[in-house]
């Protein structure tokens, strides 16, 4: 059978129930017999659990199934039970005993409960939580339901892409003529870029975007999650494994649904996505926003290093190209 460790969220294979060690983090776990499942308390009812901040259980109280380790930087546990040390000879914790730190109760995202809450209400509620309360949402969301997160991201990001493609196609006639004019006065390599951009506004390209939007959203989510997780691994900031990263990226990707807003939708969605994914990774992976920010921007920094190198090496070439451009404009009697 396959089991998941509640501390590190790692999965492992075992052939027996009972006490055993997690092969990833070494924590002692007890795998209960399915026959005893009937004795488990019923799951909390769905709905209304996301209102208000996360409140950890009382110190010392056993967390419920699915509880996760506390955040780094959480308030330190009480060194002594309330009321001071117990008198000698009485019942109570032994000297020096420190109760375990309070843990956070994980909750399924509203969208993961869409069968009971309704599809559109759960979609809207999840989008609101992701966009307006990312820290609280990603601190408490269950990370073993990554499928719902991916579906959420694919649906909304596809919607944004489709809306953007339609807006681009609607305004393509004016943009194309402007681009043709600009390309006519440019040297061939630069003109090729403009013609390429113009080609991306054709009807066939728009139809292609509409059809492939969900596929590209799915690929984008999985590749982004893989890249972020690799950088987090290098930073040793993945206590909750890949599912936490994928859940964060999936829900954050839903913000690309803001592409339905004409003109500003795309840039706003990108900035909002970056902010939410940094906050979300910090909370979901329990690694803090600093490491999450490094993970998000490291690939960009690597690209910048490459580009800066290219700019440095190609500086002379660029100056020459600009000079040619100016000469061409002078010959044609136009000004740049």
């Amino acid at each position, binding site marked *: 059978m396959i089991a*998941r460790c*509640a501390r590190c969220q790692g999965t492992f294979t075992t052939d027996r129930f009972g006490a055993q060690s997690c092969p990833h983090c070494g924590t002692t776990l007890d795998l209960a017999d399915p026959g005893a499942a009937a004795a488990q308390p019923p799951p909390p009812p769905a709905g209304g659990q996301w209102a208000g901040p996360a409140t950890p259980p009382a110190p010392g109280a056993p967390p419920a199934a699915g*509880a996760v380790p506390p955040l780094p930087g959480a308030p330190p546990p009480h060194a002594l039970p309330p009321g001071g040390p117990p008198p000698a000879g009485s019942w109570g914790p032994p000297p020096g005993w420190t109760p375990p730190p309070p843990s956070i109760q994980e909750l399924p995202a509203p969208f993961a409960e869409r069968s009971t809450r309704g599809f559109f209400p759960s979609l809207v509620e999840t989008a609101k939580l992701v966009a307006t309360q990312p820290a609280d949402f990603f601190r408490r969301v269950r990370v073993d339901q990554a499928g719902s997160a991916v579906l959420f991201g694919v649906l909304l990001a596809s919607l944004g892409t489709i809306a953007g493609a339609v807006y681009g196609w609607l305004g393509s006639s004016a943009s194309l003529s402007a681009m043709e004019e600009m390309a006519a006065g440019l040297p061939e390599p630069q003109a090729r870029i403009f013609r390429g951009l113009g080609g991306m506004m054709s009807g066939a390209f728009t139809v292609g975007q509409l059809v492939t939007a969900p596929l590209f959203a799915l690929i984008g989510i999985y590749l982004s999650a893989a890249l972020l997780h690799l950088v987090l691994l*290098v930073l040793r900031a993945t206590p909750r494994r890949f599912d936490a990263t994928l859940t964060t990226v999936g829900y954050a990707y839903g913000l690309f649904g803001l592409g339905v807003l004409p003109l500003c939708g795309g840039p706003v969605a990108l900035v909002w996505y970056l902010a939410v994914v940094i906050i979300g990774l910090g909370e979901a992976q329990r690694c803090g926003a600093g490491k999450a920010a490094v993970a998000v921007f490291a690939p960009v920094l690597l690209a910048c290093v490459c580009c800066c190198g290219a700019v440095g090496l190609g500086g002379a070439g660029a100056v020459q190209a600009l000079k040619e451009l100016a000469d061409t404009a002078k010959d044609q009697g136009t000004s740049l």
Partner: protein
Amino acid sequence: MTAGSDTAPSGGVLATTVLGPPGGVARAFGHAEVYALIAALSFVAARFLPVLSLPYTCPSRSLLGLPCATCGMTHAFVALAHGDLGAALAASPLGALLAAGAWVYALADAARLVAGRPLPRLSDRLWRAAALAGAAALLANWAWLLAQRG
């Protein structure tokens, strides 16, 4: 699926979850299979779609006359998908390596699923080494492209 709980060494109580049936094997369509599918799709696209006809030019190459770190990867994928290893390596050595790795991974994952074998688990240390090697390979590939075409 069931859950149980026990006392951890630190004194805390932890729950753990059974994700599969007793005696079962990991046959479900999981993340590994999604990545294998993406890899397989990249082969289909490179082999059967006119991806080189897309109206796209690398901005770095057009504006500065220098290739970027990922220049030539599409050409490498397409050339390798058509069995031209030399052209793939000439277009981008890292691209050729990436394409070969991705497609071998897709085949291996399909074979693993058919055989009903569990997904081998790599240690975090190995993943870290792979990530650092990947970044170094990207820089090395870029240096090679600059030397060849810059």
